[in-house]
Each structure stands twice: as C-alpha cells, then as structure tokens.
C-alpha cells in the first residue's frame, strides 16, 4: 500500500466531488426504496380497504395489485437507474481521477 497516492486522491477536489455525488445518490435511492416500502406497509396498516378497493367496479382487480407489482418493478427500476449512472458517469469520473493522480 503506498500511502502518498491515497492521500493525493483524497486531496483531489474531483475525488471529493465524486464521493459526495455518489454518496448522495446512493442514500437518496436507498431512502426512496425504503420509503416506498414503508408507505406500502403504512397503507396496508391504516387503509387496508383502499388496497382492497376495485379500480373499476366491473373488474375484480383491486388497487393492491398494481401497487404491489409496482413496488417490485420499482426495486428493479431503481437498481437500473443506479447502475446506469454509476457505471457511466461515476466510473468515467473515477477513471479520469485515477489517471490524473497516477501520472
């Protein structure tokens, strides 16, 4: 382990920008995911009849079905959003920082 390079990276403003951006993004998405899940639970807790209400009186499909399936899809979509930004923007920034300090 060569400490100087780690300190150089740490001191690099672009590294700090990367860390701040990525952390904020990761925590934001985590809070959205947990928030959606919690909201779903609270809905079941306080308004269970709402989830059991038919969307359309002629059809047996209740609001609970699209909401439940939507939650599953949102987990997938949120991971997709994170991977897209992390593997694109963040990794590119990361690569340029590493190239810069290793010169």
């Amino acid at each position, binding site marked *: 382990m060569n400490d100087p390079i780690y300190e150089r990276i*740490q001191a690099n403003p672009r590294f700090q920008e990367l860390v701040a951006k990525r952390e904020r993004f990761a925590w934001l998405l985590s809070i959205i995911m947990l928030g959606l*899940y919690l909201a779903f639970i609270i809905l079941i807790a*306080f308004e269970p009849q709402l989830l059991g209400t038919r969307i359309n009186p002629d*059809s047996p499909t209740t609001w609970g*079905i699209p909401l439940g399936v939507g939650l599953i899809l949102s987990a997938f979509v949120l991971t997709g959003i994170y*991977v897209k930004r992390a*593997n694109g923007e963040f990794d590119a920034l990361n690569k340029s920082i590493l190239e810069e300090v290793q010169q």
Partner: protein
Amino acid sequence: MIARLLTTLGLMAVAPALWAAGALEGDVQRQPLNISAILMFVAFVGATLYITYWASKRNTSAADYYTAGGSITGFQNGLAIAGDYMSAASFLGISALVFTSGYDGLIYSIGFLVGWPVILFLIAERLRNLGKFTFADVASYRLKQKEIRTLSACGSLVVVAFYLIAQMVGAGKLIELLFGLNYHVAVVLVGILMVCYVLFGGMLATTWVQIIKAVLLLSGASFMALMVMKHVNFDFATLFSEAIKVHPKGEAIMSPGGLVKDPISAISLGLALMFGTAGLPHILMRFFTVSDAKEARKSVFYATGFIGYFYILTFIIGFGAILLVSTNPAFKDGTGALLGGNNMAAIHLANAVGGSLFLGFISAVAFATILAVVSGLTLAGASAVSHDLYASVFKKGKANDKDELRVSKITTVCLGVLAIGLGILFEKQNIAFMVGLAFSIAASCNFPVLFLSMYWKKLTTRGALIGGSLGLITAVGLMILGPTVWVQVLGNAQAVFPYEYPALFSMAIAFAGIWFFSITDTSASAAEERARFLPQFVRSQTGLGASGAVAH
C-alpha cells in the same frame, strides 16, 4: 391505528416463518416412485457433474477455487445470485401462501425483494473493491486480522450451520414427497452431490449449478404462469374473478388479510430479513466472483430483476392453483385437503397444466434448487475455515495456496458429513426457526461489523470484536430462551424471552456495543486503525488496488 400498523409489520415478519414452513415441516406423505421426475433429475445431475469435471480442470489457484478467478460476468452472477436466493422452499411456500390467502402472498414476497436495491446502493461496490475471497477480508481490512477474522468466521459458520440444517431437512422431506425416495437416502444423496460440486469444481462449478438451476426454475415457472394465463385468455380480470368464485375466502383474496402474532416479533423479523441478506456469507461471497465494481453492480441489477420476476410468476401460479388445482378432486384427499399439504399447490399445478412429464420436470427443478443452495453454503463455510481461520489466523497470512486449498477441501468433506449427520439428527425436529435464526445472526453479527468497517472511521478492533460477539451471543441466547426453542423444542411451559425473533434487540445491542467499545478505545493500535481508514476509504471508492480478474 398503531396496533394496526404493528400488525401489518407483523405480517412482513411472519414471512420467514412461512418461508421456513415452506421447507416442509413435520410428517409428509411419501409419494409413489416418480420415474419421469427421477430420470430428469438424473439428467440434471449428469450435466452438473460434467460441468464440475470441466471446472476441476480449470481450478488451479486459490482464486479459481474461491471466486472462479473473478471471471464471472455481471449477468451470469446475477443469475447465480438469483439461483442462490430463490430456494425450493420459497417457490413452494410463496405459491402456497397465494393459494391459501391470495394477496398476502404478494405482500410477503415484496419483503424479500426490497433488501436487494439497498445492498446495491450501500454495500456491493465497496465490498467488491475491498475484498478478495470472503467478507472477512473487508471487515478486517484495517483492523486486527486474528480477532476480526475469528469473529467473522464464527459468524459465518453459525449462519451456514443453521441454514444448512434447514435446507437438508427440507430437502429430505421434499424429495420423500416428490420422488418417493426414503428420507435418509435423500439426505445422503444431497450431501454427496454438494460435496462433489464444491470439492472438485469449487466456485466455478457452484456458480454454474446455480445458473442452470435459476434458468430451469425461471423457465418452468414461466411456462406454468403462461399456461395459467392461456387458460384465462390472458386476461387478469378473468383470472381474478374466476379465483374469487371458487376460493372459500371469496373477494377477500384480493385485499390484505392478516396473519400476525405479535408486533415486536414481526418488526424484529422484518429487520432480520432486510439486513440479514446483507450479512449472509454465501451471498456476500458471490460479489468476489466478478472482475470489478462495475460487474458487481450489474449482478445486483440482474439479480433483482430475476428475483422480482420470479415473485410475480409465483403470484400468478398461486392464483392458477386456486383455479385449476382447488377445483380438481384428483388433487385432494377424502377431507378435501390438498394431497401432500398446501405446499404442494405449485407441484399439483404443474401436473394440471403440463401432465406428468412436466410434473417430473418441476420436481427435478425443486431438487436442483436445493443442491444449488447447499453448495453455495458449503463453499462459504469451507472458505471461512480455510481462508480466514487457517490461512489468516493460524498461519498468520503465511500459508501457501496449496495448503490453504487442502484445508478448504478437507473442510468441505467435513461439512458434507456434518450436514448429512445433522440432517438425519433433525429429521423429526422443528426446524422452522432455523432460517429465521440464520438471518437474525447474520443481521446482528456479520452485518454491523461489515457495515461499520466500511462506513465508520472510528471503529476499532475492540469495538468490533466485543459488539459483534455481543450481537452473536444475544441473537443465539434470545432465540434459545424464546418461544420457538424454549417452549416448542425444549418443552418448557413458559418462554423466558417472549418474542419469536431476536434481531430487533440483538442488532441494537451489537451496534451499541460496537459504538461504545470503539469510542472508548484510546489504545495506540486503535489510533492506527483509524488512520488506516483513509486509504481504505479511497480504495473502496475508486477500486485502486482492488483484486482483479485472474487471466487464464
């Protein structure tokens, strides 16, 4: 209102209990010998043993053995993670829950999924950037090797042991039920096969067994869902209205029901599920099989997609079973109960939509599913012993690859013998609590130490060691004193600890213990450990110095 909320949280928490119950509790009716199922299973075993042979020729170094040399792609690893996570018990258990309660089954499966995005956002890439073979590599990165690796190895082994017992007993029962094979024969067979995969094929073979199993399970379930939808002309409204017509609960299957005991246990189990997944050694190990953080992220993306898709399929399958199985007297006994119990709903549906050949296929897939899960567990247990205990603690990091691998292989055989022994020993025991306990321990010992080692600069060896041990001891202790073990297993009248799942308390104790014994640690070594946080942090963020793929 609050009570209602707690009750709902409770619903989330019964999930693992149901899940474990899906592992087929108690006595099962042995079915007649199912020839087509056995033939298909033999084909699966033949194919996987061939892969094991192929993998054994490529396994030359420790990195090959533990992590397939980091050569697995994100997509493959995503499938393998899904294969590791979707157990036979969850397939049969969730579809059975939908079959009996409808919408509750969907609520329940969501609880298992929401932990995955959080693992991606907060853990996956740091873990990949810092670790090499086991999660203890990460936890002990800047702390004292001996102490932290011993703690992590203990945490891993305890989790693996409980999980393995639950899987072995479930496997024996399931095979007895599906194939008409004797319980002991089934347990020995599972033990021998898993040892073969892990011993000769290492992580490469284990990964491919999991991938094949995931593909088989997903295609089998897709086919069943497709046939169900075809039956109702691809109209969900028809599916639901037909189900409401024939289900004894009627319209209630379309809204949240209630299956809760006490709210504290419920919340506790919810926590165990959410954070336990992030502390399961066999799941964490999968992140080291890919080449870098980029692929690690992709793995979670694909895994979340496959697992979510699978849960949607089981929901359709459960409704399909209401339509096609509950209305067919051929699948019921004299009293009107489902043959072999409600856990057989999906299996009977396979017969209803695809005939006996497809029934054989689904039965073989269920068996394959168990093999994939136990192989991953065995490999994680063996690496905790050889990489953490032997190479890092006993030999102080000076062991050579060859010796380390030998220890790993000896451990694999020992674990196989142990698993068979425990499987036979626990045949008649109540094992429903074991999966919940494994998750509770993972959430109370492995997760806090791992998480804080990556996120909290002030963590010291003393804090991690004392806090982590407290979490481990509290989780196991409270479980023993709780209703499941103290009353149901040991036969006492009254439980000393009133709640079924300890995670709420044991996680709080672990975090508080780690915090207190870290901030009060003023030793010189603690100061050095805090100073090492900087390079660790930079590496975890940038991947600089991370172990890469091994070139072949």
